[in-house]
């Protein structure tokens, strides 16, 4: 039993004070002791680094936690002890208290909140040898894209930190747009990035374009609501503060809008039409969109106000473009002198314009100068057209014979006024159409009543209408027939001009026919 205990146990047992960790399990066995242990001394760093070249490499390159002051002058086994069992955490990192800044990579923002394993995982390790080490904290570089996807698909380079902070990758808070080719100002400062930098699909992934965007023209991002009418230099009128703020208003060419300013509209101030500011786009289809209906609904058709453009244009309301042709389409067709007179003659009564005239009677406009003096049968209802035409008032187309007094001879050649016009006491002209057909009503009785019989002169006994020659007079039908030498004598030899209380006249009638009247 003594021998059994003395020799069997030492053979079976090992010198090792405990199992090595899984990572070093291959070094179990007495023959391997000196691979780590130095005879005559304890474990030296050199023995460790002979295998752990990744650490020696870091130290040589003066980077990583193993190059920090915490580590450099320490023994490896101070932190990485052994012989504590297979499951011993030979790398015992206190994830909560570890000062990551000592690795040369300061954890800030989100980096300081996430778990170590979120970054320290094989997927992010480039070195294939280190990648195989389960749970290793080595092998990561300080390059953002080793861990983060390059959402920009290599279009923006590798210096993520120039735009992004570790606080929030999405916000790109470090980005200063003023350093970009397109400097933001005005309302552009308030616009969300995505409005100008839209997300598209590229290589099967969502991709937000930040480079090689067209920005030379506003139209690159903005819709040209003017549809090219004003060219592509939006900035000549607009400012970035607001598209609705217009600059260089005096240079604004309203002619390029849907409503070019012409005539009287040219000098009108903007705000007179754009009430409420230029951003208000007024209606302009009808004049009454801006203008007051001067005619107070006088012109309506089917209940709707007829637009001004039917009669007016932009050169002024005082003028009208209403044509005679248009007037001719009304119930009252303009003819004759009506074509020449101004509108106001008929349509402006007193100071008020009236375009609706009930009926087409002349007296609606014309004064009936005849009053009740015309009593002709066909002169009914103030029917001026019975005598007059629209051509000319004076051009009376009147059948005088209808009056019972047919104009013959010289009467045909006389103006109406010769007979129908007279002057009253005030020497005013009085036109009268009374139906008196006596000659002396118009003609002067140069015979001073010598031939009046029963109150009637009856000039036609001697005269006809062609002239005043007494062509109808037959001396033989008088009480003194001419014979002999009397036939050869001129009239005045017997009928001498006398002047008496009746005036100056030729004496044709004698109280008593005596030779002595003529013959001495």
């Amino acid at each position: 039993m003594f021998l059994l205990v003395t020799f069997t146990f030492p053979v079976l047992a090992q010198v090792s004070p405990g199992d090595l960790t899984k990572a070093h399990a291959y070094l179990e066995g007495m023959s391997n002791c000196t691979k780590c242990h130095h005879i005559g001394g304890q474990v030296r760093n050199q023995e460790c680094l002979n295998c752990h070249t990744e650490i020696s490499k870091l130290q040589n390159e003066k980077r990583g936690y193993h190059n920090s002051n915490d580590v450099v002058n320490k023994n490896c086994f101070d932190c990485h002890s052994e012989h504590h069992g297979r499951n011993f955490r030979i790398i015992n990192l206190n994830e909560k208290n570890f000062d990551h800044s000592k690795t040369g990579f300061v954890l800030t923002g989100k980096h300081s909140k996430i778990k170590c394993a979120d970054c320290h995982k094989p997927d992010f390790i480039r070195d294939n040898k280190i990648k195989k080490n389960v749970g290793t904290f080595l092998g990561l570089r300080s390059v953002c894209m080793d861990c983060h996807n390059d959402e920009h698909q290599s279009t923006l380079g590798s210096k993520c930190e120039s735009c992004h902070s570790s606080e929030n990758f999405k916000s790109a808070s470090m980005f200063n747009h003023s350093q970009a080719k397109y400097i933001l100002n005005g309302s552009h400062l308030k616009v969300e990035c995505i409005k100008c930098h839209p997300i598209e699909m590229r290589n099967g992934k969502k991709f937000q374009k930040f480079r090689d965007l067209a920005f030379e023209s506003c139209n690159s991002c903005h819709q040209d609501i003017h549809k090219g009418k004003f060219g592509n230099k939006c900035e000549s009128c607009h400012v970035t503060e607001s598209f609705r703020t217009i600059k260089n208003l005096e240079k604004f060419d309203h002619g390029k809008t849907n409503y070019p300013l012409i005539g009287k509209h040219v000098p009108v101030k903007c705000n007179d039409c754009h009430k409420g500011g230029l951003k208000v786009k007024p209606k302009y289809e009808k004049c009454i969109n801006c203008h007051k209906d001067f005619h107070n609904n006088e012109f309506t058709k089917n209940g709707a106000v007829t637009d001004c453009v039917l009669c007016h244009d932009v050169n002024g309301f005082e003028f009208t473009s209403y044509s005679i042709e248009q007037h001719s389409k009304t119930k009252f067709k303009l003819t004759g002198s009506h074509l020449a007179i101004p509108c106001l003659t008929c349509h402006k009564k007193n100071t008020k314009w009236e375009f609706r005239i009930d009926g087409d009677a002349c007296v609606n406009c014309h004064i009936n100068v005849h009053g009740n003096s015309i009593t002709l049968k066909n002169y009914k209802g103030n029917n001026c057209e019975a005598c007059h035409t629209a051509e000319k008032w004076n051009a009376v187309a009147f059948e005088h014979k209808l009056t019972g007094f047919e104009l013959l001879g010289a009467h045909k050649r006389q103006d109406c006024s010769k007979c129908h016009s007279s002057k009253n006491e005030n020497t005013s002209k009085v036109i009268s159409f009374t139906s008196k057909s006596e000659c002396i009503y118009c003609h002067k009785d140069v015979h001073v009543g010598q031939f009046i019989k029963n109150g009637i002169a009856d000039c036609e006994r001697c005269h006809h209408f062609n002239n005043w020659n007494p062509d109808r007079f037959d001396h033989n039908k008088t009480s003194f027939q001419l014979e002999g030498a009397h036939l050869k004598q001129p009239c005045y030899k017997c009928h001498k001009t006398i002047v008496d209380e009746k005036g100056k006249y030729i004496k044709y009638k004698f109280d008593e026919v005596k030779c002595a009247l003529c013959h001495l």
Partner: protein
Amino acid sequence: MSKTLHRIFIIILILIGTATFFYFGMYGYNYYTTSNEERFFNGLHKLLKPSGLIGHGLGIIGSLMMIIGVSAYMIRKRIRKFVRIGFLKHWLEMHIFLCSVGPILVLYHTAFKFGGIVAVSFWSMVAVVLSGVIGRFIYIQIPRTIQGQEYSLDELKSLDKDYSDRLKTEFGLDDSLIVKLEYFNKIQIHKRTNFISIGWLIFKDYFINKKLLRKYKKELISKKIESNKVKAIIKLCNSKLVLLRRISLLHSVHIIFKYWHIIHLPFAIVMLIIMLVHVTVAITFGYTWIF
């Protein structure tokens, strides 16, 4: 050294041993109850690990205590030249003390990590200690003089008679009472050498004696004997009963004690040899404690 002074000395040694056990147990409880994989991260690791300042020191001191305890006792016991130096009983007590406290220190040196070749040494040490405890139990079953020399059977029987005489003369017990006492404990030579059966017998005998003494005490009280006297009589009776039991077991215990030596010593040697290997390996790999 008076009996009382000796008793105080023994109590002090026991207290030292107990205090050592509990002090390091309490001091390193947190560390020792931590799993092996986690100990490295315990704040006491640097001190209490086997190669730590305290841990390593405990190992060295504990080992030295055992080496001294074993070697001194062996020398005193086996080399004639030193036979006269002190009572063997006291040397044994010192041996027990050093070889009890030493293993306690070594136990804390191991930090309760029993692996590798040195574990053989440790478990050998445990075996030696346990066998020592058992040996101590067996040892006291053999009545000895203060010099450590065993009584012969006749001497023992004479001692038993002395107890009976003292009961008669000193306390005036009548024969009926003494006969009654001896009736229950007739000397029967135990022939079996089975340690377990002996142990069971002693265990059982202890309670039988207790019961007997209780009964005996009632009888003494009924005889209207003073209480002080009753106490002294019962004490004397107990010594007598223990002596009677030891006489009955003397033969068997002698045989067992012979076997015990065969176990105790080889384990001690194994322990020492592997301890030396362990120490050599430790020094080879640079673990030299404070030196």
